[in-house]
Structures are given as C-alpha cells and as structure tokens.
C-alpha cells in the first residue's frame, strides 16, 4: 500500500526534522567541547561574520549536492542554505541552554560568539542530512525475517548499543562531562531527558531517514515507536553509566546526584548515536 503524498506543511516539517536530526548527528561532539564554548567568549566580531559567510557558502555547495530537502532545483539551494544556517543556530541555542552553557542574561558578545561558532558545524550537518542517513528502499523492515520479533528486538538492541558506543567513546573520556554535570540544575536535567527522548524519536521515526519501519510480523516490544524510544533511552543511560565508570569519571561511594547528573549528560550523545545506529544497522 502506497503512502499518500504529504501536504506542503507536512513535507516542510519532515524536511526540517531531517535537518535537525542531521545537525545533531554531525555536531553533537562539538557541542560537548569546552574549547568551543570558551572561544565564543572572546573571538573577534569580524571573525564571527567571516565564520557565518564561510558557513553560508559551504551550505550552498552542500545543499546543492546533498540537501535535507529531497527535491531541490538550483534556485532553491540558497534558500536551503539559509534554512540550514537557521537550523544550526536554533540547535546551538537550545543545546547550549540545556547544557547550562548559555543564558539569555549573558553579554551579547558571548551569546553571539558561542552560538555562531556552533552554528557552523551544525548547519553543515543539516545540509548533509540526506547523505548521512539516506533512506534505503532496498532494506525492507531492516532486513528482518517476517514473524521474528525476537530477532528484530535483538538487532535494534545491538544497534543502539553499537551506535551509542561509537559516539559515546568520543565524549566520555573528556572533562566536559563532569564539568557540565557540576553546573546543571534540576531544570537542566529534566530538559536533557526530554531533549534526548524527543531527538531520538525524531531521528528514528520522523526524519524520514528510515521510511520502511518494521516489516510485518516483526513487531516486538522494541518496534512500537514510543516503546522503542523509551527502551532505547534506558539502554543509552546504561551505556553512558558504564562508559563513565570505565573512564574513571564515576567511582563507588560518589553521591547519587553526581552519578545521575553525569549519566544524564553523557546519555544525550549516546542516545543520539544509538538512534543513528538503529537506522544504519
């Protein structure tokens, strides 16, 4: 049964969900890099304008060859590049606020610097969204055998762990995790949980990267969208906790609040990696 053609608003929403997904997948390591936050505090204003110009030109080029909109004439490429920059800027603001590295009360110079520096890689991620995780019509139901929900569940479980480890390994050993955790308050922790769940749901189910979904008869407990999202997040929390323990960021006897904060912080990139893993594996 063919899916009906989406309306223009639905299509636009799908395109931007794809763009935001690509931005997070590409830019999450740099969002967790303290040097990027610090540079934003003192980089010269004219350099920021130059950053924006370079990012715009790069996005024009990328949008023409691999944009997040599935159909693009050349004359819409510039518009798509502007959209990519805006996606990068919004993503930068949201994540930096959730990580408590940006406040609207900060000096304008610091706000501009932190946001624009992160906008560059995030917008590039938005522009290459279709290349990062291209819809694969040849994979019907992730290659699962009909009537094999256990296999489908194990496949998704392994993919979540593998993808989470791939991103988590790049961030877990760094000092940013305990630094971020120490500065987070209850609001930020709740926000990071919500962001993790919304992002992983959007990447897997709303971005259009994997339009096939589960094959008929393979619906296990892992294949219902909300169930899969929550279960995958729990797995990501476990992977994050184990990585933090292995890299000596947490040890026995630490306060529960410290364990929780650090695990929640690292679980965001681990969850995003897990979502990407479930798409490509």
């Amino acid at each position, binding site marked *: 049964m063919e899916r009906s053609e989406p309306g223009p608003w639905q299509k*636009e929403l799908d395109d*931007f969900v794809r763009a935001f997904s690509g931005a997070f997948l590409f830019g999450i390591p740099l969002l967790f890099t303290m040097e990027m936050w610090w540079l934003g505090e003192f980089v010269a204003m004219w350099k920021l304008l130059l950053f924006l110009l370079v990012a715009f030109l790069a996005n024009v080029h990328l949008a023409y060859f691999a944009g997040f909109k*599935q*159909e693009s*004439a050349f004359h819409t490429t510039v518009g798509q590049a*502007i959209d990519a920059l805006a996606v990068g800027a*919004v993503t930068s603001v949201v994540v930096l606020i959730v990580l408590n590295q940006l406040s609207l009360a900060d000096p304008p*110079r610091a706000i501009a610097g932190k946001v624009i520096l992160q906008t560059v890689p995030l917008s590039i991620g938005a522009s290459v969204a279709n*290349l990062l995780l291209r819809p694969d019509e040849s994979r019907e139901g992730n290659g699962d055998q009909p009537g094999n929900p256990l296999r489908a569940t194990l496949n998704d479980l392994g993919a979540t762990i593998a993808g989470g480890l791939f991103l988590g390994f790049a961030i877990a050993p760094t000092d940013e995790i305990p630094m971020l955790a120490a500065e987070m308050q209850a609001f930020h922790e709740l926000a990071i949980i919500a962001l993790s769940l919304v992002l992983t749901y959007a990447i897997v189910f709303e971005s259009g990267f994997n339009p096939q979904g589960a094959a008929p008869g393979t619906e296990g407990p892992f294949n219902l969208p909300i169930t899969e999202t929550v279960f995958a997040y729990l797995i990501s929390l476990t992977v994050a906790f184990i990585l933090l323990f292995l890299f000596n960021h947490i040890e026995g006897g630490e306060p529960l609040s410290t364990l929780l904060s650090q695990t929640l912080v690292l679980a965001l990139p681990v969850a995003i990696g897990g979502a990407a893993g479930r798409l490509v594996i």
Partner: protein
Amino acid sequence: MTAREANGTGRETRPARDPGRSTAEWVTLSVSIAIIAVLVGLVVIVFIFGGDKPATIEVRPLLEEVRQADGAAYLPVEVANRGNRTAEDVTVQMTLHTEAGEPATAAFTLRFLAGGERQRGVVAFPQDPRAGELRWTLSFIEP
C-alpha cells in the same frame, strides 16, 4: 515535460517546470532569514557599539550573605568585568585580617569573564569575615 531522474546522490531533481515555493516553504524561509538577521545584527551592533575597553575587574564581597557551616564561614564574592574585552583565568585572592592570629587566605579562579559579565565565587575562612578586615588581590590574562 515532467521527467524526473535520479542523480548520482540518489536525490530527485524537480520537474522541468518548477511550480515555485509553497506557502509553507515561504514561511519557513522567512523565519530562517529572520533568525540569521538577528544573529548578524547582534554581531554588527556589538562590533559598532560594543566598544573595546580593556577588561576592568570589580570584586565585591557579599558580606550580607555569609553563612556558617562546620566551623567555617563561607563568603560569596561577586566578580564583574566592567570592560569590553574578555578576561581569562581571573584569580581572586582574599585575605582576612583579624586581631587574633595570622591572616587567613583563600582564593578562586574564573576560567573566563566576558565583558559585561558577572560571576560568583566562594571563599571560606575559619573566622567570620565580618569581624575582620578583608583585602584582595587580582590577576588575569587578556587573550
């Protein structure tokens, strides 16, 4: 002609007669332009009107917020940069002089303090700082 063909990247090109942007696309493009305009405008305003005064650090002990715990007196200290340039590794060393005993010293360091920004540090002394004389020294780097 409405032939559509896939290019090497697997993406489809528009039909030869492009119907133009939909209302949804115009709305999102307008919002995107507005967001970028705000960013660029912010940079331009800071560039033109932000000034370039060297970092000037003001230290203000908040004696009214002293709290006692476990035999120590915790004193919050507000540090503000009144200049425009960012100060790096701002180190504040507070010394408490009382009539009884040697002076007590405590210090903290702020990694970055942007122009116009204020942050708080906390120092702890064995005696109540309100009962003595506080002095401080300051050092920082201008990147």
